[in-house]
Structure formats: structure tokens, C-alpha cells
């Protein structure tokens, strides 16, 4: 593969030489023609093997510079061998002038033909390359679509399971909870016993938190959509997580563009998305950091759609979209974990600190909105979360 890749690079470099490379080639071809010319003179035009060597720079020039290169090099070769005509006369070799004209015409024919041939080959090469790129992209999109389908099927089955599991687990939890409350009220004031009961009570609350996540996950299908601005939702979400941000010594910078178009969202659900993302960022920057939230509106380019938001089948090139960017200055996410971020029950947080459902729910809510989410590490450190919503027309009354 490496060899083929190297050949490809070499071909690409010399197929269309630019600047210094082109000048170098011209000099080399000119030098070849001159050298062969000298050899022709030295042999007095008798050694036709040297004369035939002239085809080498002509073909080379035509291959690199196509038809103009073939013609110019053929004319140059003709001019170079022209003066040898008088040389062979003293040596008694008969060579009519028409022979030189014929030879130059033949050079021109070979130069032009080779130029046309290489131009055609180059066009075919370009077409093949384009087709290869399209195939590679189609293959990547197919792979992404397949991954999306697998992910969707996985999420759907987990969603169906979640409601049942939640119900079955809540009854035993209720028994434990009531049992603990009963024991707490009836046992004497032994401090150790109280501590144990308190820890068990905390464990019940933690388990209940996981169940709540499961229920949220299984219930996030219904949307109450309304056309509204994202900025107030972001502001409200930041207020709701302010305590966590202060606790983690995280400063917040907002760059919210007031001129962005409204979007069609379920306010509560999208608020849940922002809260999940802000909480994750705050917890990632446990001992201090900066959270930056930016909103912008943009016209989507092909590059963004094919590279950045890989699951962008709901968006088209030129669509207007509202983008929310959330940057943190935390340690980032290990590269091998990035693909698993949206998997249910996957968490990078310590045991007991996260249920591993937050980002699954976030992704599900975004999918329900036909909106996109992309999470990646930033080159300068930390994590960048990008959310993309379809921009809506602002109604006349708003």
C-alpha cells in the first residue's frame, strides 16, 4: 500500500509540475536536446542512433507539458540538428535538405501525438481519481450510516428495556428505602448503625438516580416543539448549573450572537441537553477551568457536512444552521474513548459519579430534533462540543 501511495504521490508531483519543478524539468529537457545535438555533430550526423535519441526529450516534454511541450521540444530538436546538415557534406555524405525538414516534421508529429496521448491519459487519470475519491467518500458515509443504524438499534432496544427495568428495580428500592427509614426510627442511637443506615440511604438514592436516567432515556421520544431562540435556553441552563460551576471553580464566557435565527426545539429537552453538557464540562475541570459557550449562524459548507458533522444526512450544503460551540479547558477525552461516548452506560467518570446515560440521552434528544452533535478533543486542549440546529424563519410577530 505504501508503495502504491508513494507512486501516487510521485505521479501527482510530476504530472502537473509547478514553479521550480517545472523550470527544473525545462532545463533538463533543454540540456538533453543540447547534449544529443552535440553527439549528432560529433558523429557528423552519421550515427542515426544519436538522432533517434532526440525522441526521448520530445516524449518526456510531451508527457509533462502535453501538446505545447511536445511541439516546442520537437521544434527545438529540429533546430538543434539543423546545422549539422552542412557538416556531413565535407565528409562526402549526401543528405538532402528535405531530409532535415522531414525529420523535423516527424519530431513534431511524435511530439504532438505524445502530447495528445498524455493529455488523454491525464484526463482519464483525473476521472479515475475523482471516481476513487467519490467511492471512498461513499464508503465512509456507508460505514457511518451503518454505525448510526447499529447505534440507533442499540439505543432503541435499550430504551424499550429501560422502562421495564426501571419499574422492576424501583419496587425493591422502595422496600429497601422504607426498611431503612423503619430501622432508623426504631434502632437505638448507636452511631455506627446510624452511619451504616445513612450510607445505605445514599446508595438507594444513587440507584434511584440511575433509574431516573433510564426512565428519561426511554421517555425522550415525545417532543413539544416550538420556534424559539436558543440563547435564553442556554442562559437558563447555565443558571441551573451555576452551583456546580462555582463548586468546580469554573469561569464562564458566553459569546451569544443575538442575531441568530430561531430554531424548532422542545425547550425542556434541549435544556436537559445543555445541562448535561455543562455538567460534564464542569466535572471534567474539577479544580478550575473555563467554559466557553458560543452561538453563531452559518451557511453550511460541503466540508463541514462531510468532515465535521459526519451524521449530517438531515442537512444539505448551503442550509442555514445555528451552531452552538461549547469549549472546556479540561484534560480532554482519551482518543480510544471518543467512539463510545454516546453508548449507554459508558462513562469516563469515577464509579458513582455518573450513570453513563447523560450523553446517550443528549444524543437521543438531538436526534429527535434532527439536530447534530459532535464531540472532539481540541488541539489546544480540552473538549469541543458542537451542536447544529436547522435555522428557522423568524415569524413576523416575534
Amino acid at each position, binding site marked *: 500500500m505504501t508503495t502504491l501511495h508513494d507512486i501516487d504521490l510521485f505521479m501527482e508531483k510530476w504530472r502537473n509540475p509547478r514553479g521550480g519543478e517545472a523550470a527544473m524539468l525545462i532545463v533538463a529537457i533543454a540540456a538533453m536536446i543540447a547534449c544529443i545535438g552535440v553527439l549528432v555533430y560529433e558523429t557528423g550526423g552519421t550515427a542515426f542512433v544519436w538522432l533517434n535519441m532526440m525522441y526521448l526529450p520530445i516524449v518526456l516534454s510531451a508527457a509533462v507539458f502535453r501538446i505545447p511541450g511536445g511541439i516546442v521540444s520537437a521544434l527545438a530538436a529540429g533546430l538543434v540538428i539543423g546545422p549539422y546538415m552542412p557538416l556531413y557534406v565535407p565528409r562526402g555524405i549526401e543528405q538532402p535538405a528535405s531530409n532535415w525538414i522531414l525529420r523535423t516534421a516527424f519530431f513534431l508529429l511524435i511530439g504532438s501525438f505524445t502530447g495528445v496521448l498524455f493529455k488523454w491519459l491525464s484526463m482519464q487519470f483525473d476521472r479515475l481519481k475523482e471516481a476513487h475519491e467519490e467511492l471512498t467518500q461513499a464508503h465512509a458515509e456507508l460505514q457511518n450510516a451503518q454505525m448510526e443504524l447499529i447505534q440507533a438499534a442499540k439505543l432503541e432496544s435499550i430504551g424499550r428495556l429501560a422502562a421495564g427495568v*426501571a*419499574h422492576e428495580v*424501583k*419496587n*425493591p*428500592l*422502595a*422496600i*429497601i*428505602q*422504607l*426498611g431503612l*427509614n*423503619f430501622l432508623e*426510627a*426504631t434502632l437505638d442511637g448507636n452511631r455506627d448503625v446510624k452511619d451504616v443506615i445513612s450510607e445505605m440511604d445514599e446508595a*438507594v438514592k444513587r440507584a*434511584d438516580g440511575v*433509574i*431516573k436516567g433510564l*426512565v*428519561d432515556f426511554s421517555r425522550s421520544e415525545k417532543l413539544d416543539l416550538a420556534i424559539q431562540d436558543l440563547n435564553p435556553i442556554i442562559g437558563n441552563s447555565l443558571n441551573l448549573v451555576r452551583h456546580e460551576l462555582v463548586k468546580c471553580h469554573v469561569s464562564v464566557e458566553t459569546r451569544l450572537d443575538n442575531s441568530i435565527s430561531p430554531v424548532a426545539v422542545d425547550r425542556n429537552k434541549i435544556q436537559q441537553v445543555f445541562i448535561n453538557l455543562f455538567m460534564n464540562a464542569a466535572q471534567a475541570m474539577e479544580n478550575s477551568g473555563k467554559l466557553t459557550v458560543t452561538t453563531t449562524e452559518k451557511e453550511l459548507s460541503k466540508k463541514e457536512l462531510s468532515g465535521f458533522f459526519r451524521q449530517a444526512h438531515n442537512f444539505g450544503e448551503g442550509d442555514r444552521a445555528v451552531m452552538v460551540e461549547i469549549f472546556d479547558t479540561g484534560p480532554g477525552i482519551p482518543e480510544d474513548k471518543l467512539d463510545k461516548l454516546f453508548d449507554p452506560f459508558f462513562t469516563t467518570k469515577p464509579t458513582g459519579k455518573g450513570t453513563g446515560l447523560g450523553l446517550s440521552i443528549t444524543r437521543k434528544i438531538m436526534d429527535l430534533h434532527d439536530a447534530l452533535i459532535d464531540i472532539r478533543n481540541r488541539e489546544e486542549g480540552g473538549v469541543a462540543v458542537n451542536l447544529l440546529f436547522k435555522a428557522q424563519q423568524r415569524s413576523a410577530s416575534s
Partner: protein
Amino acid sequence: MKKKILVVDDEPNLTRMVRRGLEARGDYLVMEVNAGNRALAAARNFRPDLVLLDVMMPDVDGGSVASEFAEANDLKHVPIVFLTAIVTRAETQPTGSVIGKHTFLAKPVNLDDLITCIEDHLGK
């Protein structure tokens, strides 16, 4: 005089735990019923001041049981509190939230919150 609480849930361990918790406080007399279709008959016999009712039960759902109570002239005045796993604590207040005509308490419930909810309904 002790208040009578009828606890209807298909989970015997749960009804037993509710009974123990409430009766330990000394203010309540609790009857356990572990099948929704026996709730009406048990209520007629026990004459409860309040019913704690599960929603998802294998024989009959809590909504149907509540409808039967609402249609029975001798029981329609008895307040019903749904103690259920179908809502989460985040969706309800710790001491219950009114959804439609009924109060819902989310499982798992804290005993103090359960008692506060009962007392609210009994007008203490």
C-alpha cells in the same frame, strides 16, 4: 383514634414495609392487599381513611381500581394516593404531586415524605 390506611400493591414485601413503617409511628392502622381486584372488597370491609395504590399490577391496573372507588357511593370520598414506579422523583414533589385528579408519589419513597403526604390528605 388511629387513621386507617389501605395499601394496595402486588409486592407483599413493600406493603409489609409500609405497614411496619406507618404502624411504628403509632398513628396508623394499616391493611395490606396484594391484588388490585381485591381492593374494593377489602376497602368495604376495612373502611380506610386513605388508600395507597400501586398503578402497575398484574391483575388490574391502579387506574381501574381508582375508577371502581369513584363509582362506589360508599367509597368515593376516600382519598387515593398512587404510590408508583411509573413516575420518577424528579417528576413529582417528594411528598407527592397532583397529576390529573390524583396525587402521585414516586417509588422509592422516604417514610417521612409518605407520612407528610398522608397527613396532608387527612387534613392534619
